[in-house]
């Protein structure tokens, strides 16, 4: 049930981590040394960042020879990358709408659920009434439960 790790992705992610560590090192360089203690605030993040960079370099060094190998997948099951990307994009839009407080939580959540569930069921006509029903029930139901029973603040208007 395992899937080969894509060396290209491995290298890309490690490079992104190295860049992030570069930012950390640059920021940590400006931290003054400790006044009342020998260590201060800077050395621990700096040491951690250098260790991470070393481990990333090791990972990249191990991944490079595999670049020329053919990747094998375990079971030939197609991966739904497009759906995952679209779902994530819709989630970002949903959070942005909540951030901007465009309307109530219930309305935004119902719309988000209708769109995302609709997307995942590939707009299968037979399922659409269920999609709308679930979206409305969860959207308005969760607003009721969280604001009336648990008395929790919700994002949105």
């Amino acid at each position, binding site marked *: 049930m395992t899937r080969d*790790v*894509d060396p290209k*992705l*491995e290298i890309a*992610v490690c490079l992104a*981590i190295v860049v992030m*560590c570069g930012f*950390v090192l640059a*920021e*940590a360089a400006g*931290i*003054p040394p400790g006044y*009342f*203690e*020998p*260590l*201060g*605030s800077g050395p*621990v*993040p700096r040491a*951690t*960042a250098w*260790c*991470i960079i070393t*481990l*990333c370099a*090791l*990972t990249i060094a*191990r991944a490079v020879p595999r670049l020329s190998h053919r990747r094998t997948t375990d*079971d030939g*099951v*197609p*991966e*739904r990358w497009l*759906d*995952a990307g679209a*779902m*994530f994009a819709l*989630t970002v839009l*949903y*959070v942005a709408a909540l*951030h901007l407080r465009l309307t109530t939580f219930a309305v935004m959540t119902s719309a*988000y*659920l209708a769109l*995302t*569930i609709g997307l*995942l*069921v590939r707009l299968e006509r037979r399922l659409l009434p269920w*999609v709308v029903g*679930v979206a409305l029930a*969860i*959207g308005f139901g*969760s607003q009721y439960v*969280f604001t009336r029973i*648990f*008395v*929790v*603040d*919700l*994002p949105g208007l």
Partner: protein
Amino acid sequence: MGADLAGGLALLFTPMPFFYTVLGVFLGIVVGAVPGLNGAMLIALSLPLTYYMPTTHAVILLVSMYTGAIAGGLITATLLRMPGTPSNIMTIFDGHPMAKAGRPGRALGLGIGASLVGGLVAWVALLLLAKPLSIWATRFGPFEIFALVMMAMVLIASVSQGSLVKGLLAGLLGMLVAMPGVDPSAGQPRLTWDWYQLNSGLKLLPVLIGVFAVSQILKDIVELGRPVERMAAATRGILMTLGDYRRQAVNLARSSLLGTWIGLLPGVGASVGSVVAYTVAKNTSRHPEEFGKGSEEGIVASEAANSATVGGALIPLIAMGIPGSVIDAILIGALMLHSIQPGPTLFLTNPDIVWAMIAACLVSTVLMYVIMTASVGLVVKITMIPRTFMLPVIVVFCVIGAFGTDNSIFDVWVMLAFGVVGFFLERIGVPLGPFVIGFVLAPLAEAKLRTGLMMTGGSYWPFVTNPVAAGFLSIALLMLAWSLRGEWLAHRARLHDPTV
């Protein structure tokens, strides 16, 4: 001890705590049984709801969810050939063939019975070991605690899935992510890039929900096309007879003790416990050829061990504030959210919480047995809710949970960002367990190191001269060397034979 335990049990049998125990076990079983969802996700998402509960009620709910989630995966491992949680992978090898051969009730019954015994054995160990260990740990100074955390980190990294390098990378990344915010020693912000939202650091809950829930949802969507082999639940033969218990007594005792011991090791969770117990059972069996084809011993070993890790893993949490597994790291976070500092003094400062946890571990194990036996059919029906409907709904609960931490939409963005981070880390084989444990333990490790160095005027010698600190660090170095040797041997084998 007897009076304290009786107090914990008495609390548990009052209406609300008992309700939370039943609810926690049932939700844990359901979430454990649904492939793609897991206990860590459930507990992380439930944390915001526990803000408004008394701390004892909150820990009772969370411990009950933990017990249920580890056991619940057995159902789908047996009937769907998909482990509900990673800790049930070994159960598939024998549970599913037995179910396919027309004995699903028997396969489930063996697993449920073994889970009960494993849980009870581990609970006895928890009861006997937690307090003496905590008394021993109260003598630890800053160098010992720092060394203990380092040992835990190396242990977690060396036994996590994939390579040691990636395990260490995950732990260190988690530690680095915990560092932004106002430094409590100097009172100055660090690594905040002048972003005021980072002054209080990245909060535990959004990071946890992102890493465990959002990343898992993305992974599940990518794999939505995977076909599921379904089988109806049958309850015939679901109760293990006394004769079964007698026949499996040695296997049950050995696997439960192995699971407890492995759970006790910091950071090593249920999946390792179940693999080790299964392997030992196979190697010592009179019928090793039956393993993988529906062996009763295989099911019993795997399930007794993974359930035993729950109680075992609570021992270092309660005694030393060191998580025995990823879910324990979340439980530590839950205690901190309730302004309770986990650690060796917990027995002195908050005995009510400690005894509530210990009592919840016992009662939830027994309830897990009752609920799983009685409601296996219902749980199977719930697992059949299409994931296309379930996953977006869980995203909404993730948003509510992350927002509820501080009523801040910034935390929701943090959650989404860590969802992506977790997804890609897992995609390249970097385990998420060490990441979360590093995130939880980093502030403790750094604070202890700096306090120790203040006491010695900057000298690191106590790491060599202090026997406990030196012992912990030596164990860490030995484990590091052992794991590196294993990786080197595997690498050499691959050079000689690329198919290995």
